[in-house]
Structure formats: structure tokens, C-alpha cells
């Protein structure tokens, strides 16, 4: 096709231009902004509740006067992962719902490239959600802590939690893209993801930590080094990271495989 004289852009690599196109898809509609507002509200409620909620009789959660309690408080800033997985899920299911997948695949018929670019773009969006969540959550926590007696938290721990939250949100966004690809139906996928994260997984992680710590959300607790009910401990930072990366990889590969030859009609 060397005879074609159509306009050529600078030699941006296919990967970079596809990621850039996916990011433009996100920023050219309003959903990402609505989700970002959700991040701020959700983390705001989490932080305020962690600081001011009265003690529950019968359950022992670490108090703010302990190092573990302070870690749990700052880990609230990682709550953006819920919105990261939802926007990832929407990222793929919207293409199916609005039938824009046809245009997407006409522009780049190599489906693996499209899938990788979408996951990379949503990892970026997820990381941004994570970073915004951390910035807002930390600021709110630091503003409100003087009203309560509390232990100190080392700056290194704050950085470690922040890094873990950003990484976790990036991975959850990829997981969302993969789930959306596998489930396809937008309402089913989003409802499924929300019910899983907020209800099923949250309960398993809280009440059955021996099992829950191996789930994606439980692995994130390991990455953030939070402490559960009655002093329950999760995986180490590294083991938690590996488990979450593993879940993401498994779903991503399954999603890519099912997309390879599926008819787009």
C-alpha cells in the first residue's frame, strides 16, 4: 500500500496512539467526572466515619490511638478502587451498548492491541482516581485528626499506603475492563461488580479473612496493610500485590482470548 498518499502523522507507535485514543474516549464524555465526584464523596464519608464513628460494642476494630487504627484510617483513602473497577467495566460495556466497538475495530482490527490499549488507558484513569482519592482522603484526615486523640503515623507508612492505593486502583480498573469484556451486558456487569465489591467480597474479607484475603479486595487490604475485625491480618504487601496482579492477569487474559474471534455484529 505504499502508493497511498493519505495524510500521515508523526510516527507515533500504534500502542501510544491507541492508548491516547482510549483516553480521549474517556475524557470526551462526562462519566469519568461523575465517577471522580463519587470517589471524593465515598472517601470523604469513609474518613469521617473512621474518625468520628462511635465504638461498636462486641467488635474490636483498631482504635485511632493505635498504629493499626491510624493505618486503617489512612487506608480509607484507597476507597477509589470501587470507582476504578466500575469505570473500567463501563469502558468496555459502553462500547458494546452504544455499538462503538465496530468503529474501534475498524480503526484497529488487531483486537489484542485494542484490548491492551484499553487496559493501559484505564490503568491510567484508575491510578488518577487513586491519586485523587489519596490526596483528598489524606487532606481530610489530617484536617480532622486534631479533634480526636490519636497515635502518630510514620510518613513512610503514609507513602506506602498512597503507593498501594494508586497501584490497587490501576489494577482494579484493568480488572473492570476485563469483567466488562466477559459479561458484555452493561447493567449486569456494573451491578455485578458493585454488589461483589461492596457486599459479597467486603463481607468475606471482614468476616472470613482466611478466605477473603485471597480475593482481589482482600489482597488490596494486604497491600495497604490494614487490620480487620478482632485484629485479623491480611497478606503481606508483596504477597497482596502478587495476588491482585494475578487476579488481574487471569481476567485480562480470559477477556483477550474471548475477544479474539468473537463476531462483532
Amino acid at each position, binding site marked *: 500500500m505504499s502508493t497511498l498518499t493519505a495524510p500521515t502523522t508523526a510516527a507515533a507507535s500504534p500502542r501510544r496512539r491507541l492508548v491516547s485514543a482510549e483516553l480521549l474516549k474517556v475524557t470526551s464524555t462526562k462519566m469519568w467526572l461523575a465517577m471522580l465526584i463519587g470517589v471524593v464523596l465515598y472517601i470523604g464519608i469513609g474518613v469521617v466515619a473512621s474518625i468520628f464513628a462511635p465504638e461498636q460494642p462486641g467488635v474490636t476494630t483498631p482504635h485511632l490511638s493505635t498504629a493499626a487504627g491510624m493505618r486503617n484510617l489512612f487506608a480509607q483513602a484507597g476507597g477509589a478502587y470501587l470507582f476504578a473497577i466500575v469505570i473500567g467495566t463501563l469502558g468496555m460495556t459502553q462500547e458494546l451498548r452504544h455499538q462503538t466497538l465496530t*468503529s474501534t475495530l475498524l480503526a*484497529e482490527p488487531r483486537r489484542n492491541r485494542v484490548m491492551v490499549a484499553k487496559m493501559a488507558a484505564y490503568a491510567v484513569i484508575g491510578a488518577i482516581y487513586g491519586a485523587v482519592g489519596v490526596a483528598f482522603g489524606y487532606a481530610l484526615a489530617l484536617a480532622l485528626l486534631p479533634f480526636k486523640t490519636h497515635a502518630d503515623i510514620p510518613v513512610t507508612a503514609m507513602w506506602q499506603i498512597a503507593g498501594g492505593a494508586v497501584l490497587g486502583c490501576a489494577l482494579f480498573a484493568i480488572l473492570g475492563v476485563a469483567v466488562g469484556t466477559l459479561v458484555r451486558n452493561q447493567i449486569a456487569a456494573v451491578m455485578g461488580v458493585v454488589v461483589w465489591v461492596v457486599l459479597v467480597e467486603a463481607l468475606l474479607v471482614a468476616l472470613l479473612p482466611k478466605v477473603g484475603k485471597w480475593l482481589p479486595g482482600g489482597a488490596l487490604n494486604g497491600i495497604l496493610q490494614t487490620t480487620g475485625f478482632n485484629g485479623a491480618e491480611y497478606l503481606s504487601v508483596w504477597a497482596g500485590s502478587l495476588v491482585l496482579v494475578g487476579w488481574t492477569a487471569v481476567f485480562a487474559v480470559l477477556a483477550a482470548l474471548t475477544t479474539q474471534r468473537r463476531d462483532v455484529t
Partner: protein
Amino acid sequence: MTTPPPGSSIDVTGLSKHFGAVLAVDDLSFSVEPGRVTGFLGPNGAGKTTTLRCLLGLVAPTSGTATIGGSTYHDLAHPMRVVGSALEATGFHPGRTATNHLRVLARAGGLDEHRVPEVLDLVGLADSATRTVGGFSLGMRQRLQLAAALLGDPGVLVLDEPANGLDPEGIAWLRAFLRYLAGQGRTVLVSSHVLSEVEQTVDDVVIISRGSLVRACPLADLTAGHGHVVVRTPTPQPLVDALAAQLPGSAVIAGEDGAELLVDGADAATIGRIAFGAQVELHELRPAASDLEQVFLSLTGGATS
């Protein structure tokens, strides 16, 4: 303006596609040449869209191939610069503006984003560039699809029912536009389920029915051999007998009221002479008017329902 890119031929060879038990395309073969507008015709459900989706790598054929310039769509390094396509059931995000929709595609296809305002202007959507597509009429969406197809200034255009939803003015514009593009040497393949819609635009036709090829020929050939002559007479039988005796190659089809005959295999002058010789009174004698739609319906089994 740079010189337009040369078109490549489209070659469909032995293409079949099963959807479960349904055979949507059945051993279909045809070619589409550059510099001409080719109508891809058939009733709804004939397999046109499936064929085009196989050609564009969206649907995997069960067997056979569909190539552009000898290459499958999947193997084109820069597909949008080679083939511009507008398919039915291709959507838009209702909350995205026309400009942003095209910018996304330009980026993904590795095209210059400066083309976006150009193609919007070309299809008459410049004034709606910053409006979200959710508020677009069907005709405007069709124009936006066409703009997307033109983004890469491709040598091959594949348009699925592009006239759907266009007003008469829009259809006239589309006709002229497609002729212009083919005149530049591009390959233009346009599908339609209504022959009359593309009759004035196309050079060649590829007609399919129930997934199989019915005819692939220049449009002019479609009517050749179908030059019926309409004859109206109060006494049909003597004329039928005279025609059968003097023109054994001719065929006569009686009209509904018995007084109107459709004669095949003879021109009006010959029929008039025979009628005169047989002293049959004629009330009407004329070549049947453009009966392309009739030909189309008979070729496709009239299966428009």
C-alpha cells in the same frame, strides 16, 4: 488537494458464514472494481451486512475469503487509509460531540486530526461539529458515519445502506458525492435493499438473495434481455397465435385483465408489423418502461417482506 489514492479491488471468494444453524452467506464470490460505483443489492436479510462485516474483519467467515487489494482487512497496516467504511448498527456515544467522535477514530487509526474539520465540512456537518451526537437526526448520523469513512482519505469506500434516513435532498447529494469519489478512481461499494435508491448512481450491481449470488454485472446488462413490450388489444388470442407462428422465439405473458400482453423476445416494430398483418386492432404498443425494480424483484424472488 493532493491526488486521490488509487482504489483497490475488492475480492470476495467462496465466502460462507454460518451463525449457528443459520447460513447467512452461502459460497459467495464477486469482485468490485476501482473507479466505479458498485451497488451491493438484495432484500433485507439477504446477507449484505454479514458479507461487509466479513470483508472488514468484524465477522470471521466460516470459509472463503474477502480481501481488499489482495489483503485481508486484518493485515492492512493502516486500514483507515485504505478502506473507509460506514456500517449499519455502528453507534455513537450520545454524550460525545461529532468532532470528538472523529478525533478518537483519527487517533486510533493514526490519522492527522486536521482531517476532522475537513471531513465534517465535506459532509455538511460543520455547523454541528461541537454538538453531542445524542441530539443528531438519523440523517445527520449517516453523514457523520460517512465523515468517519472519509477520515483517512481512503481509496476504497464501503458503505452499508448510506441512504437510509437521508431526505431526498440528502440522497441527491449522496449520489453526486459517490459519483465524484468514483470519478477520482476510488472503489465505491454501496449496499441497499432498494434498487431504485441507487439505480441512478451505480455502474455495476452485485445482487444477492438468501446469502447467494444472483447476478454480478454492469447495471446496463441487468435490463438487456428483459426488454418487454407492452401490447394492449381487445382481441388478444389472434395476436398470440400470430406471434407464436411467426416468432417462435417470443414469449407472451398475459396481463391481469387479459387485454394487456407482455411480449418478450421481439421489439415493438416487429410486433406492430405482425399485428398489422394479422389484422389485430392495437390500443397500445410500447416498450415496457424501466422495469429494473421488477427485474430486481424477480431475481431476488420478490422476497422483500
